[in-house]
């Protein structure tokens, strides 16, 4: 009897696990099924550049069909998981409209799938309602972010109409996806404003909740002088508490009020609603996960990875990428009745990412649970490497080739 592996989520983590398993297992040994709701795979790091470039929402650098990225042995189901029953090892799925024509569900709109192994790659969701004043839609006249392609284009539009004033950049809560992103945005904004003759008319203020401008001290030591060099103001210990989009003032828990002309705020994040509904998350919806095996605590043969976990690593495609290989190795070993090899099947908190510092320069962060990053001096080299990665991503990462 083949074993059934169900993977929920079609982001970088879920897609790599599905492809690695499908490549290394014969159908007689296991079926690999990936369930996700949109049929699309987004390259989220590309959103950072959208406010400053000319790419459209449908650009193939930003979004592609998920099916085209999956090994043909992976069964791809477009649908929404409405419930996870870990007692009976079942998923309840509502099919997305149109699936019948593609996959032939016989007209059914929902189904129950049993599993032997479950992988939760359910990601994070934006929860602007967690910050007072933000629940009223972003966009024109309110506030901005670049944590979706649509929002990033609205921000592009706002920048094109910007004539000078104070731009405030901050985060609505911690954790959020891609810790360097708001700093990268700030550096790219500084460059963009200079190129559009607006820098001398603009004050940039970067606000951050922690006692430094980046969670990790060694990185803060590299970027703080850069902020100072570029005359970018920063305030630390600023925990956003309310935003008044009418008066254009952001207030902190620490009692500071900062007026702005344009606000770019990374929305508060939470785990997927499905995880909260299934009772598998903590109070913010993150899944309690073993930091080395990536098994969901208290649930055998259920794994979590990427943004969905409560692990103390950055919520990033990079972490999901490293974790996916661990999850796949553990499931492969279990299906083959072998002991997992510790060097291939233990996550040590590894993350590798870039931090764009503007003017065609970037630095690189490589770290794990034990070793903080030691970022090199920002240079053209790392910027080019990042640009190359943005292009190469589609051909090597989802397939699990690197």
């Amino acid at each position, binding site marked *: 009897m083949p074993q059934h592996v169900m993977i929920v989520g079609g982001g970088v983590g879920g897609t790599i696990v599905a492809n690695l398993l499908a490549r290394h297992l014969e159908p007689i040994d296991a079926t690999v099924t990936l369930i996700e709701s949109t049929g699309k795979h987004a390259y989220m790091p590309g959103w950072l550049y959208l406010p400053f470039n000319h790419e459209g929402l449908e650009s193939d650098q930003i979004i592609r069909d998920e099916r085209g990225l999956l090994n043909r042995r992976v069964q791809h189901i477009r649908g929404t998981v409405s419930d996870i029953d870990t007692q009976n090892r079942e998923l309840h799925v509502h099919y997305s409209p149109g699936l019948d024509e593609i996959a032939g569900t016989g007209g059914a709109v929902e189904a129950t799938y049993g599993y032997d192994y479950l992988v939760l790659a359910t990601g994070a969701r934006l929860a602007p309602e967690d910050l007072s004043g933000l629940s009223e839609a972003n966009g024109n006249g309110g506030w901005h972010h670049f944590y979706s392609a649509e929002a990033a284009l609205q921000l592009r539009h706002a920048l094109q109409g910007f004539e000078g004033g104070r731009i405030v950049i901050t985060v609505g809560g*911690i*954790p959020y996806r891609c810790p360097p992103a708001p700093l990268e945005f700030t550096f790219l904004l500084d460059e963009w404003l200079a190129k559009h003759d607006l820098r001398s008319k603009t004050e940039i203020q970067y606000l951050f*909740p*922690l*006692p430094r401008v980046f*969670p*990790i*001290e060694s990185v803060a030591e590299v970027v703080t002088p850069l902020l100072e060099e570029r005359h970018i103001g920063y305030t630390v*210990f600023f*925990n956003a*508490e309310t935003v008044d989009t009418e008066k254009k003032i952001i207030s902190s*828990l*620490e*009692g500071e009020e900062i007026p702005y002309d344009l606000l770019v705020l990374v929305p508060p994040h939470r785990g997927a609603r499905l995880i909260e509904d299934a009772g598998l998350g903590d109070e913010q919806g993150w899944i309690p996960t073993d930091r080395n095996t990536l098994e969901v605590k208290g649930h055998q043969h259920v794994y979590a990875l990427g943004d969905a976990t409560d692990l*103390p*690593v*950055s919520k990033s495609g990079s972490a999901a990428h490293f974790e996916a290989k661990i999850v796949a190795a553990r499931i492969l070993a279990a299906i083959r009745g072998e002991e997992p090899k510790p060097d291939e099947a233990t996550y040590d908190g590894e993350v590798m990412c870039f931090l764009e510092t503007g003017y065609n320069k970037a630095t690189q962060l490589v770290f794990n649970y034990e070793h903080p990053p030691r970022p090199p001096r920002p240079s053209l080299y790392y910027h080019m490497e990042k640009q190359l990665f943005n292009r190469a991503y589609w051909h090597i990462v989802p397939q699990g080739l690197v």
Partner: protein
Amino acid sequence: MPDLKEITIDKEIDARGSFCPGPLMELIRGMKALPVGGVLAVLSGDPGSAKDIPAWIQKARHEFIGTFPEQGYTRFVARKTH
């Protein structure tokens, strides 16, 4: 520093083993949820907390009650004043 035994702690958060975002964010989250006048304790194993936590309490104008070393970790205690 007052004697720990004489302090009534309303809520205690165990933030040991939490490095990112870390014990400071747990304390900030706890303070947000606490009623004014309440006393919060946070347990931290991160050496950085000795500097970060009192600095934040001062910046946020709450009352720092004290730092109490335990075996392998430290208990930080503060009162929410506004």
